[in-house]
């Protein structure tokens, strides 16, 4: 669908990675020149938990629908199954 985003925000994944790694504020190198790839190692520890697993299940209309769940974000709505209306009603 045009304009649809189905991904976990990367900034959330990085925040969880920082929590998991117990990284200190100093480790984020706040005061040096920002370099591409400098956070690459942060995500390694969470690789499995950040994977997105799709699952097929019957839709209300009777067909199959593909659903997605974000690891460690159980409250996230299922956007693939929520094409209209208010997020809270999904």
């Amino acid at each position, binding site marked *: *669908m045009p*304009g649809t*985003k189905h991904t976990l925000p990367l900034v959330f994944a990085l925040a969880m990675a920082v929590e998991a790694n117990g*990284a200190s504020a100093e480790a*984020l190198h706040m005061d040096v020149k920002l370099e*591409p790839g400098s956070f690459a190692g942060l995500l390694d520890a969470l690789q*499995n938990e950040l994977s997105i697993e799709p699952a097929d299940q019957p839709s209300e209309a009777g067909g199959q629908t593909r659903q997605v769940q974000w690891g460690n974000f*159980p409250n996230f709505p299922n*956007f693939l199954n929520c094409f209209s209306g208010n*997020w809270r009603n999904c």
Partner: protein
Amino acid sequence: MQPRLIILQPTPYCNIACSYCYLSHRNDRTLMSAPVVDAVRDKIIAKLPRDSSAGIVWHAGEPTAAPIRWYEDAYERLEPVRPPASNFAMQTNGVAVDDRWIELFRRTRTEVSLSIDGPERFHDARRLTRNGKPTWHLAMRGLKRLQDAGFRPRVITVLHPDGLPCADEYFEFYRTNGISDISFSVDEMEGSNTASSFQGADHKAAITKFIVAVLKLAYENQYPLHIREVERIAGILSGAPVSGNELVEPWAAVVVAADGSLSTYSPELMEVTAPEYRNFVFGNILSDDLAGIGDSVSFTAASREIAKGVDACKSCRYFDICGGGSPVNKYCEHGSLSAAETEFCRLTTQAAADALLDFLSAHADSTPGLLQRNREKIPSRTVGKGAAHVPIETLV
């Protein structure tokens, strides 16, 4: 020369009159002619590599001010030569979006991005009709129609200093209205907008704080809000390929106005009075080829100065996530394309980068963090592989 962004302006006309608009021709009802569309097809789109994923964007004035039948004709001309991975997009104020427009977007797989400046009181303070009436309800009606049709439009929000202490209001606005893909900007001093609301004081820290607050609310509420600038920087720092700054790379972005005027670097440049660069109109698609324009005096001079400006940016802490800034802001703020830092840099790219780092730093000391709290909540029965996944029946 491989354009990654092709910005087409079907008409300079706009159906509303935002107080911060930089468009000096927004009363001009000129409509891009069929020969101009054909020239865009033959000289730009047909010459894209077959694996090009270029974006073809209908842009300012207000693109829905052009009739739907005009687009039907334009798509018919352009679609046959478009590389399969390229895509059409439209940046609109949403005021005129109705079922007929949605049908066009659906049929042509056009991505839609809406300009909505957040909650009603902030939006309606500056985005008004030509008669001075508020437009928030009209824009929200367009958003709702698009959402009901299955679209998830990105929303671009232009910030004002008055809104910066109200991050919670903005977050609630996005969440309540199912908006999960947003972009923040500031009103810029360029074109006919001769003064920015951010002039006169340093607002960088306040914008940073605002973005951090929005991120925190989204994270704690587990609402998947994508802030385009933050996500882009997070991607670069995480090792994603850097696509480069098309604002400083000749012809990475191509701009074609309704009358066929051609420019590059950024669409706003054509709104700037700069005789030394022919007002940044480097040619006309009806009479010129992009390759031939490369030899023109005005283009060569502008390119040389822009390259100097990129060099001047190289010592900046943010250079690797920015790539050399925005020439139009350099010119409008400093009168020179070879300048380095601008207020626009500080209030957009730099503020977004600082917000990302501040947000992540806060998580370094959060005990237990959301990750830990959710790990404790998640039941053991799972779907898929990996112990962190929850039963699908708990999701619906």
